[in-house]
């Protein structure tokens, strides 16, 4: 069986200004990122014939999406052969996985992929919004659909509550502790110091972490990512058309898009993990590379525990061993066994929602991380995004 995604390559990346509350037009941020990615690949907008995004134009939580397919298509007057936007897919990076499939099957040659958020500005100066309490309950509207109807009436207003229950179960079965989990957050903050675009760059100590206010046990403030404004984009090209472009192409070695358990925050068979278990398993089913071959891993940390779950699922440590593995931070540091979240992740870098991880994987493979560059000329990277019922990942290799 040919692994068709190897016909796809990452050829360019772009990012807008990123900030806590920029107060800028989210479409303008989106277009800044898109045009930067197109130029980075050495292409012009006329050569873009595919467009893909997550979650697309929709309602939902304030600032959750800054632009949909139609917005970008029309703003850049693109001439498209293939396009898609939507939320029912294997996590945020599902939009990129779809783009790989599109170029592999010849439906498109150069696909512009983007994700845009403006949650920082949209949520204003108040506390972080809970799902369904902004527009919903307060006005007497009722929750509908399994996800909302079976969570909100139980005052579980946020993924912070839902994922905290996965973490709690992991703590129970494997003896994981807050003192261990803390290192996901501390590592992210250390790396953010080397990222000029990161939101929080001041040092974070274990004491700071342990004395922070609790959000939803076992999570404290520093286990939760930080809403921000910003857009991220990348170009997925046909590998056979990528070689003449500006950069050395980053071949897509394998993708993981599986969800074999139930698609639910609370009904998944193993409460110590989530959909990402299946996506990670599929990734390794499609390549001869092994976890030990990976030089850098950018792992979704919407909540700290999700990154720990990705570490286990991707086989960087054993199932249940994530706590001891990250304890002390040495193994996951920039010069460690498997450097993770080299740009500060979403915990310190800002909640760019999935695409930031793939962007950073490319930065590292192209050797442009500057102060945060992983040493040793990394050639293989994994980018993974999503928690709960969302999970998708890509393994990239520089030729």
């Amino acid at each position, binding site marked *: 069986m040919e692994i068709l995604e190897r016909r796809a390559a990452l050829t360019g990346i772009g990012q807008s200004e990123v900030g806590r509350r920029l107060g800028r037009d989210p479409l303008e941020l989106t277009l800044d990122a898109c045009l930067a990615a197109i130029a980075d690949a050495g292409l012009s907008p006329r050569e873009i014939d595919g467009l893909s995004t997550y979650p697309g134009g929709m309602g939902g939580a304030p600032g959750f999406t800054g632009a949909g397919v139609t917005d970008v298509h029309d703003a850049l007057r693109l001439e498209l052969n293939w396009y898609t936007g939507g939320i029912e897919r294997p996590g945020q990076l599902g939009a990129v996985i779809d783009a790989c499939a599109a170029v592999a099957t010849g439906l498109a040659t150069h696909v512009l992929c983007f994700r845009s958020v403006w949650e920082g500005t949209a949520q204003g100066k108040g506390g972080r919004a809970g799902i369904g309490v902004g527009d919903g309950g307060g006005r007497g509207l009722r929750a509908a659909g399994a996800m909302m109807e079976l969570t909100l009436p139980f005052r579980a207003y946020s993924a912070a*509550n839902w994922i905290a229950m996965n973490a709690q179960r992991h703590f129970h079965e494997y003896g994981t502790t807050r003192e261990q989990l803390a290192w996901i957050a501390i590592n992210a903050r250390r790396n953010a110091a080397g990222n000029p675009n990161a939101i929080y760059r001041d040092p974070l100590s274990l004491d700071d972490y342990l004395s922070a206010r609790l959000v939803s046990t076992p999570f404290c403030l520093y286990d939760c990512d930080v809403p921000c404004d910003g857009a991220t984009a990348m170009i997925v090209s046909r590998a056979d058309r990528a070689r003449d472009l500006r950069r050395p192409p980053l071949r897509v070695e394998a993708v993981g898009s599986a969800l074999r358990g139930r698609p639910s925050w609370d009904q998944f068979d193993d409460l110590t993990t989530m959909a990402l278990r299946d996506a990670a398993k599929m990734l390794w089913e499609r390549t001869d590379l092994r976890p030990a071959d990976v030089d850098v891993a950018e792992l979704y940390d919407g909540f700290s525990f999700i990154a720990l779950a990705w570490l286990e699922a991707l086989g960087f440590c054993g199932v249940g061993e994530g706590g001891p593995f990250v304890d002390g931070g040495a193994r996951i540091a920039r010069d460690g066994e498997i450097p993770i979240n080299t740009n500060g992740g979403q915990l310190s870098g800002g909640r760019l929602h999935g695409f930031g991880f793939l962007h950073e994987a490319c930065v590292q493979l192209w050797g442009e991380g500057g102060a945060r560059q992983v040493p040793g000329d990394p050639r293989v990277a994994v980018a993974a995004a999503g928690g709960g019922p969302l999970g998708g990942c890509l393994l990239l290799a520089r030729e």
Partner: protein
Amino acid sequence: MADLPFRVLPRVTRANEHFWRGGAEGRLQFLRCTKCGTWIHPPSPVCPTCYAKELEVAAVSGLATVATFTLNHQPWVPAPDHPYAIAIVELDEQRGLRLMTNIVNCPAESVHIGMRVHVVFEQREDVWIPLFEPAVES
């Protein structure tokens, strides 16, 4: 009622009213397949095990075990009772028959995985929210 915390209420439909209104008679109800006996949650028109459509509404004992939980401290909405306990409980009737809920009528700090609990209903308008409290088992 004035001291009860705010709740977003569910939209009741033909498909889910057995679940949200069974509490009026003190019954926690789910769909059950009459062919193979599988309990189904959330409701679906087809049995996920044998794909039969011959489903009935049936009551469970209301006994369950806390599979996991979290104590919510974050004031998503103002409430008099932070932290409060959100849990996923597994009903005695079937492995994997789970429900997100709140554990009530006990100190939040006493909630733990493996805790035995029993359903108790809180009426809000036209729905009966299934919550769980510590079980008294002989």
